[in-house]
């Protein structure tokens, strides 16, 4: 029954979802260059050194006949992280000032295509260049959350390192597990009481009893004790929930309480004749996205605001995209609220759009050119409901009204049903997305 429900929903939703486009997310894009180009690259190269950057550019842009524009190419480069700085975790989490944040978080992106179709028929080359940065403004709640997690991690680490140092000593000299245990047990008890004063006598004894029983099964060998030491210390780490503390801290760092402001800019360079000697800059975009994550009673809630400005060269679009209408200045502004309740997620999104152009309308008596201003406004509202059926399967449904698409201005209803399966998704590293994205 559990499996038939999602299948049934999918079948019912086919008429609703047919031929709808994917919704653009309301946030600053990770790769602004790819976004301005409308590219969804299969992989984004993220070189971690200048040598790797040089290799990536050289191998993709230099061909037998000189410089060429590669197809479906995206690259993201963050200069600060090409070097080690020996930052402690506090230095990393709390940059000294905004200048330092600018240095750390600024990344540059390049995206290229050979498939920018002009006049519905000609494939041309285009390059997009982008820059992105992010500023985070920590608050007291964040400091508290970091301090609490760090305190627990540090207690865990002090216990492990103190036991490890004794363990190394005894494993060198003790010939049997019983001798070893007689030496190490009082030390473990000492360190547990030092770092976890709230543990009761009974809990401590139970901890030691379990450790002894497991330890005996591990195959003590004083001549080759690395495997035993690793297993023994891992057993302690497991009992102290070391992996869970690490995961929780890592998750929190990805989504901290407080205000984050993402800023990005990108422009598009088009080569309508596929000749490097002739290029046009037809489109530029600027994104500013503040996001606020609440704490305590509202810690399920995240609120995003968006400001997006897009500039189009209307002469270019009138010439190469004949049946579509573009405005020169386009401003999107809006809000999105995301609420997470265990497996259920609700996202509400409201965005307004204001577009305007100045069109030549003749000359005055002194022969000065005159312009007429044309403008339009639009509104988009979408609600998305998402539910994790299992750890690997997510069901989502979006309903609302979108902006008038450029190609088909009658089709604004949004009714999208999605079923996402996870089969051990590749990591960002696998995809070359190793830089911090804040997502």
């Amino acid at each position: 029954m559990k499996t038939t429900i999602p299948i049934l929903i999918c079948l019912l939703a086919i008429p609703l979802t047919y031929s709808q486009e994917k919704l653009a997310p309301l946030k600053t894009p990770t790769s602004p260059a790819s976004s301005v180009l409308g590219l969804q690259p299969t992989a984004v190269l993220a070189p971690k050194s200048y040598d790797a950057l040089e290799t990536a550019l050289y191998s993709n842009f230099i061909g037998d006949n000189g410089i060429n524009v590669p197809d479906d190419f995206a690259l993201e480069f963050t200069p600060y992280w090409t070097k080690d700085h020996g930052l402690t975790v506090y230095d990393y989490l709390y940059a000294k000032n905004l200048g330092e944040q600018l240095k750390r978080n600024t990344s540059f992106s390049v995206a290229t295509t050979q498939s920018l179709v002009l006049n519905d028929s000609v494939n041309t080359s285009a390059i997009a260049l982008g820059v992105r940065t992010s500023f985070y403004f920590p608050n007291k709640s964040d400091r508290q959350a970091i301090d609490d997690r760090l305190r627990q991690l540090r207690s865990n680490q002090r216990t492990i390192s103190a036991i490890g140092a004794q363990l190394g000593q005894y494993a060198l000299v003790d010939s049997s597990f019983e001798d070893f245990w007689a030496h190490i047990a009082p030390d473990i008890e000492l360190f547990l009481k030092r770092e976890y004063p709230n543990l009761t006598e009974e809990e401590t004894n139970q901890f030691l009893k379990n450790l002894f029983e497991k330890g005996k099964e591990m195959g003590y060998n004083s001549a080759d004790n690395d495997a035993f030491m690793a297993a023994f210390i891992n057993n302690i780490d497991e009992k102290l929930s070391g992996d869970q503390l690490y995961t929780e801290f890592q998750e929190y760092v990805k989504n901290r309480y407080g205000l984050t402001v993402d800023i990005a800019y990108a422009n598009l360079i088009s080569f309508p004749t596929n000749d490097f000697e002739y290029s046009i800059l037809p489109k530029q975009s600027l994104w500013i996205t503040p996001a606020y994550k609440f704490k305590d009673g509202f810690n399920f809630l995240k609120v995003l605001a968006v400001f997006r400005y897009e500039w189009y060269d209307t002469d270019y679009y009138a010439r190469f995209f004949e049946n579509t209408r573009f405005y020169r200045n386009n401003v999107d502004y809006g809000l999105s609220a995301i609420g997470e309740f265990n497996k259920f997620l609700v996202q509400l999104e409201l965005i307004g759009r204001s577009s305007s152009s100045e069109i030549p309308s003749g000359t005055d008596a002194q022969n000065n050119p005159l312009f007429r201003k044309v403008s339009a406004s639009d509104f988009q509202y979408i609600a998305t409901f998402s539910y994790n059926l299992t750890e690997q399967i997510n069901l989502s449904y979006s309903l609302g009204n979108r902006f008038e698409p450029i190609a088909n201005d009658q089709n604004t209803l949004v009714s999208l049903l999605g079923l996402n399966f996870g089969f051990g998704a590749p990591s960002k590293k696998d995809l070359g997305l190793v830089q911090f994205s804040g997502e």
Partner: protein
Amino acid sequence: MRKLYSYKDLEVSVADETEVTFSVELISDGNIISTTVNIPQLPPEEDPVIEDAGSAPIGKGKDLRGDTTVVFSDIINLIPQEDTIEIHYKVNGQLVVAHKNPKSEEVRPLVLLLIKFTAS
């Protein structure tokens, strides 16, 4: 299971009257470490502990002879920009071990050093 990186048979020469200082230096970014230096002559609760980076005096050269000095570090790294963990261990400013491991191999490595202090 967390991986244990052990560096054994390390030897450092120090004169009898030389004060020995053990140091931990962060090379890669965003590491959280606790390092305990086991000094056999001291009770366990008095073993020096270094959090993240820093130095600790561990005694005079003559007091460290004979026994093996054990150093144990618990390391974690949770920052996405870093793909390698690199830590330097030094005695009196001299590099003893440069530990380096890719995070793809282990994000929470354990490091064990066994050092013998010999007369110079």
